[in-house]
């Protein structure tokens, strides 16, 4: 449209500050910017050490030198024929499976108990989380005293109650030492699993749980046919975390038994530490540490698949 001569085009004034797109408007840039710290963290502290570990496991690197000669799968061949390694592998599997089974049973029980309303529930929930919050080293030292060969609180208590007159050498007998390690691990891990399960239980619609009550299902039928199946995605996550945390944990074994007696309670991570760092054979240490990686990856994939399938089914 042509304007007559002398006519002025009037532009309505706008707030100048909002006329340009700000950083907050540009989601692509903002998104990358906000992700950058986490990305850097993962690359520097997880990614690079991980690649380095893989490279080390195929090298003859020893501590104190900078040599990095390629030796192929030699370390892996060595450790598979090493009886100590096989025992350690077995320990790791027993340790992981046993403690996870116990953790899930205890956590399911605790979650069911804690869900029922009772006086002081919040306080109990708080207390329950303590084992998770206490530093591993402190907790393990406390347990070391509980399992002490002379002062064992458990032994003295059993004796005082007249329940058991013998004497258990908790950390002296290979079988019992393994049990002691599993006990500590269960004690440490189950609060976390309980919290995850409690969160999962609150996510089940109340009406569904009430429907199962109305439908006349007993406690066990409700647990196994309604609550646990609906919890499966959450349980899977809890187990996955538990498996990864347990099978890669160094602290409890190292602080409690140092792998003893006679290297009988080593797990992969403690053996890797002993061979790689203390023994100086970085290559073999890395090979031992990485041995379970393929297994863990497969376990993770299977569990995540399973979890997704349940969600789709629901």
């Amino acid at each position, binding site marked *: 449209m042509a304007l007559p001569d002398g006519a002025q085009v009037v532009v309505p004034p706008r707030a100048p500050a909002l006329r340009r797109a700000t950083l907050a408007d540009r989601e692509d840039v903002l998104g990358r910017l906000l992700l950058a710290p986490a990305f850097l963290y993962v690359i520097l502290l997880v990614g690079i050490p991980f690649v380095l570990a893989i490279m080390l496991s195929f090298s003859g690197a020893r501590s104190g030198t900078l040599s990095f000669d390629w030796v192929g799968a030699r370390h892996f061949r060595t450790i598979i024929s090493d009886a100590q390694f096989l025992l350690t592998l077995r320990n790791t599997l027993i340790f992981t499976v046993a403690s996870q089974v116990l953790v899930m049973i205890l956590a399911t029980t605790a979650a069911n108990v804690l869900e029922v309303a009772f006086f002081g529930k919040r306080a109990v929930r708080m207390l329950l989380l303590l084992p998770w919050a206490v530093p591993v080293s402190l907790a393990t030292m406390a347990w070391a005293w509980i399992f002490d060969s002379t002062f064992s609180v458990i032994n003295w208590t059993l004796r005082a109650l007249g329940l058991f007159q013998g004497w258990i050498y908790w950390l002296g007998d290979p079988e019992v030492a393994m049990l002691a390690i599993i006990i500590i691990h269960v004690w440490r891990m189950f609060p976390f699993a309980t919290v995850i399960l409690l969160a999962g239980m609150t996510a089940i*619609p109340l*009406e*569904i749980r*009430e*429907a*199962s*009550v*109305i*439908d*006349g*299902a*007993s406690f066990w*039928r409700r647990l196994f*046919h*309604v609550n646990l*199946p*609906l919890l*499966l995605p959450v349980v899977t996550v809890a187990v996955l975390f538990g498996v990864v945390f347990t099978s890669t944990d160094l602290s409890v074994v190292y602080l409690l038994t140092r792998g003893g007696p006679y290297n009988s309670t080593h797990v992969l991570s403690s053996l890797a530490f002993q061979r790689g760092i203390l023994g100086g054979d970085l290559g073999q240490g890395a090979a031992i540490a990485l041995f379970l990686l393929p297994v863990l990856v497969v376990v993770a994939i299977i569990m995540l698949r399973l979890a997704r399938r*349940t969600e789709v*089914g*629901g």
Partner: protein
Amino acid sequence: MGYVETRDLHKHYGEVRAVDGVDLEVNEGELLVLLGPSGCGKTTLMRMIAGLEVPTSGEISIAGERVDEGVPPRARGIAMVFQSYALYPHKTAFRNIAFPLEAAGQPPERVKERVQGGARMFGIERLLGRFPRQLSGGERQRVALARAVVRDPRVFLFDEPLSNLDAQLRAIARYELKEFQRQLGTTTIYVTHDQVEAMGLGDRIAVMEKGRVRQIGTPQDVYDYPADTFVATFLGSPPMNLVEHDERTLLGFRPEQLLPRSIFPSSQPVFSYHLRVRQVEHLGADRLIYGYLEEETRADQPVIADLPVTITLPIAEQQVYEFAVPRSAMRSFDRATGLRRDGAA
């Protein structure tokens, strides 16, 4: 004596009296609707009958048997359909319907037979293999009903089972629900806040407010003779008009009873009013007239008139017309208590 009965039933949450002394008698085979606004205690009342809530005090009995103390939900012989249907998302429709039968320890052949019988009843045989998320709202509702029916319960409890359906489906579902309840003849308690649903479904309606039952009666009874001003204004859409008559009296009349004076024969006793029209809504089947009564003693009282399409008299906004209410349709309420007074106004 009622088939389901509550006696002076209370449920208090701290200071809040969710249910505040309810005496209810549900007759065998009838469909009783608990109607009221949200928060009136109707759902809490039903949940106590189901056994999902423990009463603060009072008695509940089903088929002459006290159930309020120590009788768990599974032993009460009740089946409940929830607002969300509460189907088990990880089970197929078949397994959902089978669940209460399996819980009762019935043998597999019998379970299969009954599930298929229930499915046939609601026309969902071909859906039995599907998971709830693969079903539409209406189909889910049928699965939930089938799950309730297969157990052969003594009492059905329905908690707003139609509120998740869209408006068109709801009318059909309401019809079907009533139909099947009549076929089975099972005593049914039905909770809703929807007065149309209540009027359409109920053999009787119990109108609740603030934890108390305000009135129980047939839909017609409750509609025509509301016990108080709350029931009068809660039931009916648009609600009953209430106008001040004198210091002690409110007069109430239904919008469809407020009609142009000219359509009544002069011999019929009526109350006539001057109505100033503010707005006219054409709703197809009828016209809603919003206006004010222009009377010397009681000015500017808002009322609504509902004229059927058969009354073609032109009505213009801002004009004053003479309207009337037949004396027989006029109800009178005590202004102080809100209670209806017996007899003609």
